[in-house]
């Protein structure tokens, strides 16, 4: 157990190949998805992923405000990713910052590539992602939540968009980093996959990897996305299948 500066670096990878929380290198954290959890939105979803808690709401297609953003031949996709002040240990300063702006932008662009935007000219499809509790991988959890919310909102798209991060911890390539692994690991590589075509519509990377490690990471991430894809579909199935219990039990007066 060495130390870097003042921070104590935890042992991220045990001698048995298990990670700090006992997971194997290719193991996801537990994921729970609820589709249609909000009333006012056209579509919504709530995701618990490990210790992440993320709510997504989708509005539209609807009129564009401000008008000048309107596109004559397609819908625009606007995304707002926001992290609550209480989502992390130290209070996060609320509101827009560089990080949330960047994440909003890449998520909006990822969704724009899978939504059939030509079907709704001069409109806006607005995606709101609220991170209520954060433990690494919130942009991926946000994409998963937003994607289920978009399907719940009846918006036509090529496919759902599962997402997961792969990283390098203790010298090994590992799927779905948790907070300690993200903070003290060597690399973090979030990605979003279109299962139907096998295309990746979002990849970012922080840290260092060899080419060979990158290519193994992509394989691991794609396999992880396909597992998450199944969970996303199950959530929508149980919301919409004819014999499912009514999900929106209480109705506001």
């Amino acid at each position: 157990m060495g130390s870097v500066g003042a921070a104590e670096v935890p042992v991220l990878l045990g001698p048995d190949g298990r990670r700090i929380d006992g997971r194997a290198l290719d193991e996801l954290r537990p994921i729970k998805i609820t589709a249609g959890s909000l009333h006012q939105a056209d579509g919504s979803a709530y995701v618990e992923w490990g210790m992440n808690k993320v709510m997504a709401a989708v509005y539209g297609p609807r009129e564009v405000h401000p008008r000048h953003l309107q596109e004559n031949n397609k819908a625009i996709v606007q995304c707002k990713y926001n992290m609550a002040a209480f989502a992390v240990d130290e209070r996060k300063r609320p509101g827009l910052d560089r990080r949330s702006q960047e994440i909003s932008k890449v998520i909006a662009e990822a969704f724009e590539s899978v939504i059939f935007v030509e079907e709704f000219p001069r409109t806006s499809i607005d995606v709101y992602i609220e991170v209520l509790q954060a433990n690494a991988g919130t942009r991926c959890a946000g994409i998963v939540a937003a994607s289920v919310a978009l399907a719940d909102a009846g918006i036509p798209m090529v496919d759902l968009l599962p997402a997961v991060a792969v990283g390098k911890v203790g010298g090994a390539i590992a799927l779905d980093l948790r907070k300690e692994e993200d903070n003290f690991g060597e690399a973090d590589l979030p990605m979003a996959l279109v299962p139907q075509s096998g295309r990746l519509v979002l990849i970012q990377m922080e840290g260092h990897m060899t080419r060979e490690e990158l290519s193994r990471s992509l394989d691991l991430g794609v396999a992880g996305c396909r597992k998450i894809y199944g969970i996303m579909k199950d959530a929508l199935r149980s919301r919409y299948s004819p014999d499912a219990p009514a999900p929106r039990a209480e109705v506001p007066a």
Partner: protein
Amino acid sequence: MGNGHRPGHRGRGREGSPSPSDGERVLVLPGEEIPAQGLKPGPGTYRVNGKTYASLLGLVSRRPPVVRVLPLSGRYIPKPNDVVVGTVTDVQGTFWLLDIGAPRWAPLHMTGTPWKIDFGETEQYLRVADSVVVAVESLEATGRIGVTMNGDGLGKLEGGTIITISPAKVPRVIGRGGSMISTITRHTGAKIVVGQNGRVWVNGTPEAMLRVRECLLLIDEEGQRSGLTQRIDSYLASTGTPGEGEGPSHGEDGHRTHRPAADSDEFDGNPPGSERRDPDEDA
């Protein structure tokens, strides 16, 4: 599902809404492959490399020559001749903009009203937040939705309340040949106008409007189940408040303010100035 529906029966459901015409109804999600069996890809589907996929969450419908996905959720997608309930969101010199729950606001031009209006007088007839019953007249490639107020049952709505449900559930609110809506009307005595956009205008005693609201929300929640009309019927019968004056005994014929079976005369919102009363109320 589909207990109450004859498999193989064809054509009653309106386009774009779940209809019982396909026998087994299969739920698909965006990106799932649909066995197209030689059918052309229709709305809610797309084709890549000779394979057909769903682009929407919904139920697969095979009606040769096309296969389509009927949406179970989402905003109202306008179709020509649909009668919808809208709310004024903006007033201009020659037209109003209406929120009909569609992707765009729909312009109602003053020539599409029964009134003779000079330029600039639009606000004397309809103001922001007023509600109207209009019909979808034209759909343009730009996404513009033209609506008109000229037609039977179209006009300004006075009084009452608007209850919003999912547009996908509108066929269940109306019921087979109007069975559901006439059940609700018979038990409550309320006047009801069901817009294809999922906005339902209800007018009657406060108690009646609340009970109609309960029914509509129940249908919205559980519209995918069978036997709903009977459940609504027994619910209303069991909660009927005596002394309301609108008991089931009155209502065999007169309270049918709404006959949705045929496509044309589906709506019975009263045009302004011609407050028609139900015959029973006069008695």
